């Protein structure tokens, strides 16, 4: 079955594949938007601790209506809950654990990724700049940075480029890119297509990708 053109199906494919990169015991920071939804696909029986850079380890689900607490929010400023084992700490402690390399995995969205592993996701020149928040700290220091994004822009342009055109968030920081077409790794030789999404073909990925693309030997299609 070819991937659907609807954004929701694309996002679901990406999110579910990204969730398979979680490992038991991981401390994970999920970026705003689509990456947040990875939390819904933590495999049964696996324990993953979610970090929120405003000062919390062990983010629970959104609260039942009526029990929300204005002192208990995530980095998107959404109300959340505690779990058994949750801890709170200051922003300095939070970023010390981020910069110190204690976060196993950071999954975040992007506007552009290039074949050198540069990431752009914080500003578009000419538009009002809102700020980078914690993104630059996270990508500079997480043990592994996965970008989960749609393969192309709304107008169909590749988001995987030879060279980022937007101001970058981090230099050579991306380890893995997951899109609705494939699973890519950034290697010393460049961007490597390792797995195809269900229904996608190598030709389709080539046609949709502006970056120079290496194809892994024995490439597989990830099971849906």
């Amino acid at each position, binding site marked *: 079955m070819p991937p659907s053109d609807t954004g929701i199906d694309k996002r679901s494919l990406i999110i579910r594949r990204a969730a398979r990169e979680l490992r038991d015991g991981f401390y994970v920071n999920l970026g705003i938007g689509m990456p947040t939804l990875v939390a819904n696909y933590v495999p049964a029986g696996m324990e993953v601790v979610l970090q929120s850079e405003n000062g919390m380890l062990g983010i629970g689900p959104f609260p039942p209506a009526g029990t929300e607490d204005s*002192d208990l*929010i995530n980095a998107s400023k959404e109300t959340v809950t505690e779990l058994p084992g949750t801890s*709170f700490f*200051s*922003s*300095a402690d939070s970023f010390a654990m981020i*910069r110190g390399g204690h976060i196993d995995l950071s999954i975040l969205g992007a506007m552009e990724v290039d074949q050198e592993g540069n990431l752009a996701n914080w500003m578009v020149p000419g538009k009002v700049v809102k700020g980078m928040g*914690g993104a630059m*700290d996270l990508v500079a220091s997480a043990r592994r940075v996965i970008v989960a994004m749609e393969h192309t822009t709304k107008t169909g342009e590749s988001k995987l480029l030879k060279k980022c055109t937007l*101001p970058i968030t981090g230099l050579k920081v991306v380890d893995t890119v997951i899109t609705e077409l494939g699973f890519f790794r950034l290697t010393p030789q460049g961007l490597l297509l390792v797995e195809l999404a269900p229904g996608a073909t190598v030709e389709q990925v080539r046609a949709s990708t502006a970056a120079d693309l290496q194809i892994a030997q024995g490439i597989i299609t990830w099971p849906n």
Partner: protein
Amino acid sequence: MVASSAEAVADIPNGATLMLGGFGLCGIPENLIAALVSRGVKDLHTISNNMGVDGFGMGLMLDAGMIASHIGSYVGENKLLEQLVIAGKLQVTLIPQGTLAERIRAGGAGIPAFYTPAGFGTVVAEGKESREFDGKHYIMERWLKADFALIKAWKGDRHGNLVYRKTARNFNPMMATAARITIAEVEELVEPGDLPPDSIMTPGIYVNRILKGEQYQHRIERLTVSRMHGGAGGSACVFAPTPNPESRPL
């Protein structure tokens, strides 16, 4: 100990540099902000992660035209701020959130500069010294200090010992250490000895003035609640955001 927010901020002059605690609307010194707005102080240089929202928190200071410059990491919640920046009436410097937190911590800890990997190779690094340590690149960042820090805690005593609640801690503990005068507003003012010494998060040495905040609105910036989920799998509740027109993914 001071009796009111108005008394606590009475000597903050025009042109002062202020740190204001909080992340979004969580843990902001809302009573001290209201008192400052009432006084109508001008040309303030503010340091705070965010800038409130239109009509609340630091958004009130923007409305009143009190801020000349701001250092923060994310200011996406203010339409007025956009207009002021475009009109050249407000200078905003955006820096990585961890760098902001550490610059403030460094200011309070007597560390004039430090190296961080955040922002290397980006516009943040422009004009800054960079160095390689053990094969990785870092940029040098300077400490941040202020004339006044306005912070918010959950409980405090007259020695200035403070306890914060949940994610309302955020930038407050570092800011408490990095200003010449630190003013703390608390929801509950208790007697010395009521706070277990092991639980104190900011020791009173850092706090110059403390007061019980007059009123707390407990504002929520993005209300998200769970929908119970009947499907198979580990989790019973869904993290998917509830429909919320205010919610705006990056």
